[in-house]
């Protein structure tokens, strides 16, 4: 397929259809609304079902029904709406149901604001709802990745019978780039026996409910399920091998950091970049490449430096880990380099 110019949100919506998604229910909230608007006309064209739900709560629970019935089902939201989805995400996890949920992150707590942000990291990676769980989280950094990750998200969701989250943000959602939409794939709602379809006489009834009620070894089953999911670490590294200080950034921040590494190296400052593509599982394997590193700096669009927790767990207590935060705007290379120099100075360069 030829390249077309699309907004990130629209590329994601079109790619969901290409991945065989034929059920969507969502609720308007900036900066994800273009996904809802796009699918409001486009879903019908491909013979799928679109519902503007009365709330995010209803939306996610419709998705749960559609997923149980065998569809590749999608819902999308941002900030306050993503919080309302947490009940349903917890239920999807509990009942071993695949679905894809997109959080086009905006800035701030409570209502916050509509500008890009990366403040939902904890909510995304720690299991944002109640209970004892993680979900796989993919973090695109471009419009093309917004498109490419949809099929991957649905495949992973089905592989593990588990919801998969996409951590996008306002910048990626709103910007326009050239993108190639992956080829259309058909999805068969009868592909899996476990989906509800009607119980034939003399066959076993299908029950979609908390696995806890039915699994003879619930604890062992879940321990093994999460152990396998933890192998799905995806990441990119940029000049990490000889870097004295390694930046850690995902999504739109990682694109800035890629450039930051180049600029710094022109000045003789050896920076590198680890870009987590999966936020959970966090790509701890990537840190093995950081053989020369003396410090780590996360670059995130939030105040508290939420990803530092995971970096500290990955590198252990021997290294300083700090955070360069930017809110209301995308981080800038100058500021990142200044912060990196300051950290290395403290380390006695």
């Amino acid at each position, binding site marked *: 397929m030829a390249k077309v110019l699309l907004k990130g949100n629209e590329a994601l919506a079109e790619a969901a259809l290409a991945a065989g998604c034929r059920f969507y229910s969502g609720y308007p909230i900036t900066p994800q609304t273009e996904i809802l608007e796009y699918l409001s006309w486009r879903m019908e064209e491909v013979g799928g079902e679109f519902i503007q739900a009365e709330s995010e*709560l*209803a939306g996610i629970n419709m998705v*749960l029904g559609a997923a149980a019935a065998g569809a590749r*089902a999608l819902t999308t939201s941002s900030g306050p709406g993503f919080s309302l989805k947490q009940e349903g995400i917890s*239920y999807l996890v509990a009942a071993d149901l695949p679905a894809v949920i997109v959080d086009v992150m905006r800035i701030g707590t409570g209502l916050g604001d509509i500008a890009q942000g990366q403040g939902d990291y904890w909510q995304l990676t720690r299991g944002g709802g109640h209970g004892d769980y993680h979900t796989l989280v993919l973090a695109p950094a471009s419009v093309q990745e917004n498109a490419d990750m949809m099929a991957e998200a649905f495949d992973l969701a089905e592989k593990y019978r588990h919801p998969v989250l996409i951590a996008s943000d306002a910048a990626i959602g709103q910007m326009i780039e050239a993108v190639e939409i992956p080829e259309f794939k058909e999805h068969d709602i009868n592909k899996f026996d476990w989906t509800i379809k*009607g119980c034939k006489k003399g066959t076993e*009834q299908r029950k979609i*409910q908390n696995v806890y009620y039915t699994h003879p070894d619930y604890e062992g089953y879940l321990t093994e399920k999460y152990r396998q999911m933890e192998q799905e670490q995806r990441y990119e590294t940029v000049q990490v091998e000889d870097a004295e200080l390694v930046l850690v950034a995902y999504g739109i921040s990682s694109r800035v950091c890629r450039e930051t590494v180049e600029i710094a190296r022109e000045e003789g400052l050896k920076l590198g970049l680890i870009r987590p593509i999966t936020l959970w599982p966090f790509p701890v394997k990537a840190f093995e490449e950081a053989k020369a590193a003396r410090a780590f700096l996360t670059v995130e669009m939030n105040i508290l430096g939420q990803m530092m927790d995971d970096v500290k767990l990955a590198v252990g207590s021997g290294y300083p880990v700090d955070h360069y935060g930017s809110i209301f705007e995308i981080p800038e290379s100058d500021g990142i380099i200044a912060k990196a120099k300051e950290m290395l100075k403290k380390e006695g360069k």
Partner: protein
Amino acid sequence: MRLVAPETVTFTQSGFCPGCGHGLAVRLIAEVMEEMELSEKLLAIVDVACGSLNIDSWRFDTIMAAHGRPIATAVGVKKVRPENPVMAYIGDGAAYSIGMAETMHTAIRNDNVVAIVINNSLYGMTGGQCAPTSLPGQITTSTPKGKDPKKAGMPFRVDQAFTGLDIAYLARGSMADAKGMMQSKKYIKKAFEKHMRGEGFCLVELLSPCPTNLNMTPVKSVERIKNEMIPFFPLGEFKDKKEEE
């Protein structure tokens, strides 16, 4: 009078209390499905409340959805499997309190799903707290001095609230005696017939005993339905949209 339960009633050890109305509703639904030859097609969505026990009491493919969300979940199911009958089975607390928005908007959209609402005038599963359907003066564990309509409002009547909406069917039956059971079964059947013709949202409310939380014998709790509930919750069909309308 038939004495054999439909094949889809499992008779596994049931968690329902003796005299509970949920078991009666399971049987009515199973009979209707058998008579309409829909037993192998029905997709059921139950709430997490006492009706969740249905998942083991009947042999239909079933989802146990979140509290108050089964109707929304049913909408998702129906969109994916439009050929199958799809039923949400939920309590009065689920339908009219926490899930009121979902119930109301499914009605506003006239989505083609069946909702069976078990009105036992309280929150059964959590131990008998006040519900929107609790009667004035009703002693519950959260209204120990009796429900005060000035604070908690009058019992919610779906027949008053939903008749203005463009839905396919709305009826209320009682499960307090044989006559009520026969009538309720007719309503359930009619709802499924309309559903299978694609007419839209069908809601059947069933007045149901909960002896445990009313602190009554099973016999007393059905007498209460006749003497105290029906005066507040009239029986009958309130909306029966004709096909051609």
